[in-house]
């Protein structure tokens, strides 16, 4: 038996779980956090942070190689081992930092596999195998997700990998086939491209990045093809076979015609599935929604006092979405009702372009039956973008034509993932597109592109040719 009664036990130490733990502790709650692996979860150890580290290094490498002003740039090479080492160091630093933060809040961190016994009761099998029981008033489930491995594939970790292995491999493949044209596939495609690999993307659906606005999808596909990526949509991979040093893929196209591909490495980017270890719905009685745990807008599950957040409950599998859900869950257990608003979660993609988006796509907004207006601004007309050699891109604002409500913002281009934060803030403040157009932006910055798109929406951008009706 663990000592006494906890106010809150959090299962999982990723960006959902640790945010819940810290926030609850700040409100004076006695918090227990159980993590069976390293603190920081997928985001810190196997996702956001490692990829951003690689993206920074490979982008720098690629930019130097392509630079027209640096002398001797053509001979530059990238040390993949150092790149990996830098990433590992970064991750280690952040994990240690997180441990210190949790400690400073007097959060009890227990290493081991948690098991939800019943509402209010939980046990943890420690690393030594001993099981300890805990009693707790509330539980937040934040077990996260793991890569979904399709039935035809058995990853060997070398030639057939998920992102878990790919982010820990020094060797740069000559050819890589990425199965899945979603966010993860597109990010990995960007990294491999910058490393000089030849990339092929195989997507089951009719387009890549299906959750994004059609203009974003088109721009990404065009850019990928320009950079030599083969994108094949409507393709079902049927089998993988190890052939010599490489891998053979048997695929069927949309018409059912079978074809074969040869590659050096296969990356499985076919989505992620929730981790149910220790919280099995069949045993615990947690209600589910497809493969996910069912929750309401306050992150309450079907069991009293039990909340679930993050990848476990589906929706967008993003660290900041899990953190926002953690805030809603903790507010709820403190008795301050706070609804999680999924439509205000920004989506960020780092691929051949950076993409930042929040809210509805144009197609979704039109389907909603409201009268909408769309404002656009091209990075080609931005002095700031031109100065950093990043004239490719656009900002697009979709607003309700009657109320001015910001329904969706889509930005593609350099630092789009930074720029989208402003749009998310505006939506949270319930500002209108006109507000966005009125805020004064420093010049020359990329932030002006969003202001100009809002001005275009409101009647006319300044740095754009006059629109002819």
């Amino acid at each position: 038996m663990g000592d006494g009664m906890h106010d809150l036990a959090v299962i999982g130490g990723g960006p959902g779980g640790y945010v819940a733990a810290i926030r609850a502790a700040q409100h004076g709650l006695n918090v227990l956090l159980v993590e069976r692996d390293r603190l920081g979860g997928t985001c810190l150890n196997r996702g956001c942070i490692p990829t951003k580290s690689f993206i920074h290094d490979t982008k720098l490498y690629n930019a130097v190689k392509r630079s027209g002003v640096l002398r001797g740039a053509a001979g530059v090479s990238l040390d993949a081992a150092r790149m990996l080492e830098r990433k590992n160091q970064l991750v280690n630093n952040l994990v240690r930092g997180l441990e210190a933060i949790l400690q400073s809040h007097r959060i009890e961190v227990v290493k081991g596999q948690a098991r939800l016994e019943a509402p209010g009761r939980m046990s943890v099998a420690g690393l030594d195998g001993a099981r300890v029981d805990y009693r707790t008033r509330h539980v937040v489930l934040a077990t996260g997700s793991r890569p979904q491995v399709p039935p035809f594939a058995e990853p060997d970790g070398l030639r057939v990998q998920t992102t878990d292995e790919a982010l820990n491999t020094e060797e740069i493949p000559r050819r890589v086939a990425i199965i899945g044209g979603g966010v993860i596939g597109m990010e990995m495609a960007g990294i491999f491209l910058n490393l000089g690999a030849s990339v092929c993307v195989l997507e089951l659906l009719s387009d890549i990045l299906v959750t994004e606005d059609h203009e974003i999808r088109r721009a990404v596909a065009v850019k990928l093809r320009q950079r030599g990526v083969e994108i094949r949509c409507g393709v079902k991979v049927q089998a993988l076979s190890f052939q010599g040093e490489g891998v053979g893929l048997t695929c069927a196209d949309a018409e059912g015609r079978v074809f074969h591909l040869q590659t050096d490495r296969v990356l499985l980017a076919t989505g992620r599935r929730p981790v149910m270890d220790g919280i099995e719905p069949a045993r615990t009685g947690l209600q589910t929604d497809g493969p996910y745990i069912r929750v309401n807008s306050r992150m309450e599950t079907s069991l009293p006092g039990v909340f679930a957040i993050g990848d476990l409950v589906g929706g967008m599998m993003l660290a900041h979405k899990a953190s926002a859900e953690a805030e809603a869950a903790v507010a709820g257990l403190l008795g301050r009702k706070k609804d999680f608003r999924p439509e205000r979660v920004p989506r960020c993609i780092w691929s051949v372009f950076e993409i930042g988006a929040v809210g509805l796509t144009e197609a979704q907004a039109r389907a909603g039956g409201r009268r909408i207006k769309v404002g656009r601004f091209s990075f080609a007309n931005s002095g700031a973008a031109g100065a950093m050699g990043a004239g490719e891109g656009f900002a697009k604002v979709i607003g309700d034509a009657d109320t001015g409500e910001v329904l969706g913002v889509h930005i593609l281009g350099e630092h789009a993932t930074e720029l989208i934060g402003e749009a998310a803030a505006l939506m949270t403040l319930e500002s209108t597109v006109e507000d966005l157009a009125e805020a004064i932006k420093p010049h020359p910055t990329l932030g002006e592109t969003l202001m100009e798109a809002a001005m275009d929406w409101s009647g006319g951008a300044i740095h754009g040719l006059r629109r002819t009706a």
Partner: protein
Amino acid sequence: MENDMATEVVMPALGLTVEKGTIVKWLKREGDPVERGESLCEIEADKATTEIESPATGVLAKILVAEGIQVPLFTVLAIITAAGEQLPEAYARAGEPPPADAPGQAAVAKAAPPPAEPVLPLSAGRARVVPAARRRAAELGIDLSRIQGTGPDGVIGRNDVEAFLKRETQSPPRASTLARRLAEEKALPLEGIAGSGVRGRIMQADVESALEKRDAPALGKVIPMTRMRQAISRRLSQSVVTAPHVYFFTDVHLDPLLEFRNTVLSGFEAATGLRPSINDFLIQAAALALADMPLLNAYVQGEEIVIPSEIHIGLAVALPEGLVVPAIPNADQAGLAEITRQRIDLVARAKSGRLALAELERGTFTISSLAQFDITHFTAILNPPQSGILSVSKTRESLYLADDGAVKARQVSTFGLSVDHRIIDGAVAAGFLQNLKRKLEIPAFTFLRV
């Protein structure tokens, strides 16, 4: 007043539910010659667009309200002068922007700086301020040109001065832009609404729940009528007071039509991709009956009976806020596929509030159906200025004595017809209803387009 020298173009009454209109586009420029009846500008009100015609022949001397600006009804938008005539002094000054600080300017990034608040050109002059208001404004030192009159033709009353003072002196409750806009649109004061946002900021959801509370009927409560409800109320009272109603009923035997629809449905759907409802057949049959008996398509105008050349069938569509009646144009000429397509489109747009004014006003006859309710028959009030409205009740099983002496069941609906007795006599109304009944009971002949 110098109106004898120049003609004002005003924002007209745009249907009964509308209080403000927005200039979408000026079709003429200052200095252009205009003919009486020629379109001057496009305006938008309550999600419908229409054009304003010139009230006089002459020259468009001055545009007073720029594109993109919303103004109350009866605001002067422009001045027409006779050719060669000077623009009167009062108007010449009026287009200059007042020293306003109102929001909304960002929405109107246009070449010429438009007035930030709607301008009533003569509000600072002598004609459009009630004396009490002028005294009060002088007392308070308020510049009358900053005040928007809400009286007829924009006359500034004392209440307008008081409201302006209140707005100026009170720091308004903190609210998000969307919350503020919604509250303004629904005429809900923000005072007293509890804000759920950061530091008590009033958010959209707070306004929505306050509106729900305000508008929910409950015992012992007084609810202000919405603009739409006020319009419906006025219109129906006017109809009852001016048009003496008289009602007729008949039972329509519907088995033949139901059978006819079943027979043609699959082929019709394969050919057009549309599934006509019983209502669509009814719309066409009514239009054909009106073509046979045009007096039912007429309306009273002064001492005249006006019979429009076209037959547009209005459909009463119930919305949570009230009733709208979009009309299917030329329903006697249109084929069933066209009627079905139009009906689906109009009803969908009625529900999403995206009907054009013309679509709401063009009806020459109305059908009101309560067929989905368990109502055996009802009377309807005429939709002015129309002279006929058909009320359709649920289809029910009814026993009858067949020719062979056996008692059998058949599908029957009781149709009611209300008419304006000033111009339609009982025999004419009865004839029309019988004509329609025949058309529906012998569908093969009615819908055979020869």
